[in-house]
């Protein structure tokens, strides 16, 4: 009896502590939540102005995103690649780098994984998948190594180089799959990867694949690396004050290179996951801009790995729900783009949000 009581006490203690941490973490994302709310509010004005009922539209959106297994699967599928690209953006950002070339690194990683998936036959399942993912990470990282070297050796700003290299990647992969690695037929795409390289689908008939688990693992791993390791400490130090980091004996150039390469590798794995889990081949133009989304999502997520994960889910909800909303109510799918833009706009205006919070407290 006595032991049981002690355990009970302990349990409530743990629960209380957990609740406290949750509250603290929740407080951090209050501005984001408010931004989302305002975005939805402004979105509903747009809906009203164009003659639609916001309640119906949002209702359909939510129903589409969560209404059935298919909806949920679709939501998570949409969120998956963005989890990786947002982690990529935020990892480089912690070192003070603006890697806006995640799209390029994503595509290079994707093609590398596809090639390994097609040509390395006869391997056991787990080996083949791992190899393809590693190829994605390696080539994504390698592709980010170029701007890293340009920055540290020549002083070229990474915003310019990563963005330019993204266009190189788009057209280079495009060329490769319309010529060298092209499958027979009139579509610019590679042949299908070998079944041994496929990531398992986890919620058929939706396209949701095991790639999302990989994403979740990387969310934790990114957090752990940044907060608990020497590398993460040094990267954050460099990002916050490179002069003091240098003074503390940290090799700033090495840190910058590593941060950008790891960022590229994260994007590359994301690309690989899309190929191995969803498309099973590299199709020219398969990414609607997941790399660019990563930037926005990382910002919405407050540049925190867990925040980025939640923000990626939000985008997933908007996109998968948006399709249903379009089908059911006839609201153009573009409203989703507007909502997304509005959320980013309001998240990017923290001063405005803080003002609202202050006003709110006064009232």
């Amino acid at each position: 009896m006595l032991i049981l009581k002690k355990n009970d006490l302990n349990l409530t203690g743990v629960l209380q502590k957990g609740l406290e941490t949750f509250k603290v973490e929740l407080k951090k994302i209050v501005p984001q939540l408010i931004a989302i709310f305002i975005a939805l509010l402004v979105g509903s004005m747009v809906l009203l102005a164009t003659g639609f009922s916001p309640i119906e539209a949002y209702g359909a959106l939510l129903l589409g995103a969560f209404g059935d297994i298919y909806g949920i699967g679709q939501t998570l599928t949409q969120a998956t690649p963005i989890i990786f690209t947002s982690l990529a953006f935020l990892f480089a950002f912690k070192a003070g780098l603006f890697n806006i070339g995640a799209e390029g690194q994503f595509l290079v990683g994707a093609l590398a994984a596809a090639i390994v998936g097609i040509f390395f036959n006869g391997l056991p399942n787990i080996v083949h998948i791992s190899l393809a993912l590693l190829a994605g990470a390696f080539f994504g990282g390698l592709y980010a190594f170029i701007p890293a070297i340009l920055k540290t050796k020549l002083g070229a700003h990474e915003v310019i180089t990563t963005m330019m290299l993204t266009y190189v990647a788009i057209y280079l992969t495009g060329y490769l799959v319309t010529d060298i690695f092209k499958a027979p037929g009139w579509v610019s795409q590679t042949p299908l990867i070998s079944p041994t390289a496929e990531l398992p689908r986890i919620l058929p008939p939706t396209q949701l694949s095991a790639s999302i688990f990989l994403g979740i693992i990387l969310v934790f791993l990114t957090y752990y690396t940044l907060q608990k390791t020497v590398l993460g400490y040094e990267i954050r130090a460099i990002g916050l004050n490179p002069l003091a980091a240098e003074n503390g004996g940290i090799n700033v150039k090495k840190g910058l290179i590593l941060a950008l390469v790891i960022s590229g590798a994260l994007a590359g794995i994301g690309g690989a996951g899309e190929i191995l889990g969803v498309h099973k081949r590299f199709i020219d133009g398969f990414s609607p801009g997941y790399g660019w989304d990563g930037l926005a999502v990382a910002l919405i997520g407050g540049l925190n790995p867990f925040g980025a994960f939640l923000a990626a889910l939000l985008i997933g909800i908007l996109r998968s729900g948006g399709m249903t909303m379009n089908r059911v109510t006839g609201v153009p799918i573009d409203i989703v783009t507007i909502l997304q833009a509005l959320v980013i706009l309001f998240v990017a205006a923290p001063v405005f949000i803080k003002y609202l919070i202050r006003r709110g407290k006064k009232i």
Partner: protein
Amino acid sequence: MTFVIEMKDITVTFPSVVANDKINFSLQKGEIHGLLGENGAGKSVLMKTLYGMHRPDSGQIFVNGNEEKIDNPSTAINLGIGMVHQHFMLVPHLTVSENIVLGKEPTTNRIFLDTKKILRDLSVFCDKYNLDVDLGSTIYTLPVGMQQRVEILKALYRGADILILDEPTSVLTPQEAEELFKALEALKSQGKTIVFISHKLKEVLKICDNITVLRKGKVIGTLKASETNQNELAKMMVGRKVRLSYNKEEKIANKIILRIENLEAINNLGISGLKGVNLNVKTSEILGIAGVQGNGQTELVEVITGLRKATEGRVILNSEDITGKSPKDRLKMGISHIPEDRQQRGLISDFSVMENLILGSQDLPPFSKDKIRINFTKVAHFAKKLICDFSIKTPNKDTQVRYLSGGTQQKVVVAREFSRKPKLIIADQPTRGLDVGATEYVHNKLIEMREQGSAIILLSADLDEIWKLSDRIAVIFEGKIVAIKDPKKTDKREIGLLMAGVNPEKE
């Protein structure tokens, strides 16, 4: 007696502190009035209130007997109050004359600057106050002392009868300070009233007629300078007795720990910053380096710590040539560095106290045994110990250092650097911006480290500080060590002249 300024029951509060608590302060016409207090005592706040930059929560201000509401600096200027801030508010790329007239420019047809009139007016004006300055030179080419003079002229040009100077000597060499004092005496003789904010006892006693001491936002007392002394003022300022000199144990330093041979380096402007420096530092010794800012001190420090490459010469630590070694290697070999600018080089202000305390040791045992993971349990333990040992005033170890006061921030740096058990400490302006209490603390710690056998290189703009602590004083001028003196066998005049590039022995 009539007062030109009377401030009655002034209270100014900021979100977390009462900066001024029912302060009464008055100025007699034609006096130099010292406002003395530690950092954060409320000196600047009180004067900024008078200058219209802060609004008092309560209290009255009388100017020449009339109650005035001073809401902004332009009201203050119209009432004849001028202020020279600690950080100059000059446009670096404009000329002296352009800076002086800025905002009140004489024009022809309200369109064009009347350059001739400006120059004519200003030279008459400078003569009147006996303040010499080349009106045509561009501000950024001038030494700090000159820039300050421009600030004073600017205030006078706007018709200031009451001039407030916020810590004016903190940026000056001893000679420049002397000239400033002369200029202030001249202004006083012309009937101007001057408020002299400072935390340096000596100069306040020297230049002021009356001294008001503030502590923690309250007036402790107003005294006649002729009727008080350093010890009394220090006690009023800090609230307890303060040691003004240190009794260092005589140590026989015999082992040379650092040898610098013919060291040369390029500075940030791409020109030669060090031109063949030779220097030895011994164990249990404090070597002071005196010099006017910008004579190669920064370059010297950076070459010793490995932040800057030497183009010529060698740095030898414990008979090992370390010229080519990385900052990290040198750190591990026992070189500690208290950087000149704690915000820029010393601390990561968005990091917590704990994270800052391990900067440089993050990948070393006991914090990391495999160079991959950091053991934050050990780090936390270490941080708590240092916070206690060095009495770092922080809410807790996880507070970001940006929220700490300057003195506390410096303690974080000092704690970190001393905890490495260094063989050589490079203390570059270790007490810049610190109040008397914190300065005393840092000095005591430096002496403690010396007694434990560390070699210390001390660089400071404050000659008094170098005097108090150093066993030997090296003077740096234009990238060379021009003399090494024993502080007991030299005086400030000699060192000051050496700092200015004059060799007194030759004359």
